């Protein structure tokens, strides 16, 4: 559990942490899109440099990013192997039984893996540097235009805020109930699959009961303070774009230009590098 960096917030002060959440959300999206547009090693290198710059500016230790990668390692290996063995165009470099590895296949596999790594890193950077509250605030603001066509932007954001806020509470609760049942001789981590599944019941039932109790209490507490949805609701912290945000956008656009230039001018010159993707 401790190794899951994806989706975790790293609570420190940094220029990146201070950026407007909207900028960071859009930046993460942009980087993910760029990771799919880029078609050369140079393109990927540019994105990697950008992410490294962000990581340094955000004072995030690289170790924690690597640790976060662990959770997607399986997916990474899986796509790599799939792409290596099942992409059969071009001259085979290596042949054994029904498997053959081609240069293009290998290249494609490497590109796919790189894309995944960059994608996960971009998403991880977003959550590491943006508190859950700021994140949902940003999402709410970004979704606001959709309200015109009846999309419940505020309600969705509120639901996300509440869900995120209760994750640590429920984790703590799970830990406590697990310990309480272990103290009564329950064993969670031994025995057959069936026994383990059954052992979860004394954990799940109290957890559900308490989750419902909490939900009920929260609903009443909100009602008692006259919560009635998003209509006319003002904010404690009004999101405002500042100079820092403008600079961040500028840097992002610069890097985007590099990658597009790379795509337009380099890829046609080096057809092998593009790997036919």
């Amino acid at each position: 559990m401790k190794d899951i960096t994806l989706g975790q917030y790293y609570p420190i002060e940094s220029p990146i942490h201070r950026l407007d959440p909207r900028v960071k959300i859009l930046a993460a999206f942009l980087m993910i899109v760029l990771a799919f547009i880029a078609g050369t090693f140079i393109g990927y290198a540019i994105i990697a440099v950008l992410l490294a710059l962000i990581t340094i500016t955000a004072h995030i230790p690289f170790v924690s990013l690597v640790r976060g990668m662990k959770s997607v390692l399986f997916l990474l290996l899986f796509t790599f192997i799939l792409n290596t063995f099942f992409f059969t165009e071009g001259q085979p470099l290596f042949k054994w039984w029904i498997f053959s590895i081609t240069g293009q296949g290998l290249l494609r596999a490497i590109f796919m893996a790189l894309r995944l790594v960059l994608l996960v890193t971009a998403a991880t950077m977003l959550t590491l540097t943006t508190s859950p509250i700021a994140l949902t605030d940003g999402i709410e603001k970004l979704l606001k235009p959709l309200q015109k066509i009846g999309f419940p932007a505020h309600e969705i954001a509120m639901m996300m805020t509440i869900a995120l806020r209760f994750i640590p509470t429920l984790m703590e609760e799970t830990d406590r109930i697990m310990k309480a049942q272990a103290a009564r001789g329950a064993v969670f981590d031994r025995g057959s699959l069936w026994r383990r599944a059954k052992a979860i019941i004394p954990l799940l039932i109290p957890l559900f009961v308490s989750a419902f109790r909490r939900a009920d209490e929260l609903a009443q507490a909100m009602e008692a303070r006259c919560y009635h949805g998003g209509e006319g609701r003002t904010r404690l912290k009004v999101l405002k774009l500042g100079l820092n945000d403008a600079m961040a956008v500028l840097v992002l656009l610069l890097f985007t230009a590099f990658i597009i230039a790379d795509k337009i001018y380099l890829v046609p010159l080096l057809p092998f590098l593009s790997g036919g993707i």
Partner: protein
Amino acid sequence: MSIDIKNLCYTYGENTLFEVAALKDITLSINDGEYVALIGHTGSGKTTLAQHFNGLLRANSGQIMVEGIDLSIKKADLMALRQRVGLVFQYPEYQLFEETVFKDIAFGPKNLGLSKEEITERVYSTMELVGLDKSEAERSPFELSGGQKRRAAIAGVLSMRPKVLVLDEPIAGLDPQGKEEILALIKSYHIQYNATIIIISHNMDDIARVADRVIALNQGTIALDGTPREVFSHYEELISMGLGLPTISKVVYELNKKGKNVPADIITSEQLFDYILRTAKR
């Protein structure tokens, strides 16, 4: 010796950003059949220490022997330990899960692998001990009243017949009557099974009344250890640790501040009453 701890240290989240030293160099022995109260400010390490008694948390360093089981060894027999040490968590009613009160109380004994007859016998005798009527056995634990739920949950631990009973704030959030009932059932278990009791509580008046010994924790170390009379006479120290005093201690403290010469180790109303009678006669 029921519990023997030497130089125990425990740190939460070792080698991470969120590292917190919860217990620092704790050395402590608790005798068989003692009734010990653990007091301390929030975050002083009481609950962390309590969870070491039955191996839910394992010390980073130091020796810990509980009921003859050496917990310093990695492969210590935790099942045997948990049979001997019962731990009642804060708000134990939140761990109820079975369809009936009977089944919930039987959960512990069943995990111990006892026979059906033995389990039935234990469930009913424990229900009697905690003051639950036999007719409640087939009800859903979720239908019980607050106080009954708490008693049913404590029964779930008592039915394992632990030699050491550790209770983390067992009377929190109960009305005065419910509180008395819980304290009474702890007392009767203490006497009936000659069990060692370790109780964590913030209610100094109750501690002054029931405990043989009080251990005050402060920032992960033992600050005071002695009989309630000894510990509660350290007014200033207790207050500086963010702890309260028994009501009577407060009265004595105020009297002494006004120049009266009342012994500082008077902590219950009976003791104060005795003292007044004696001094009045003179």
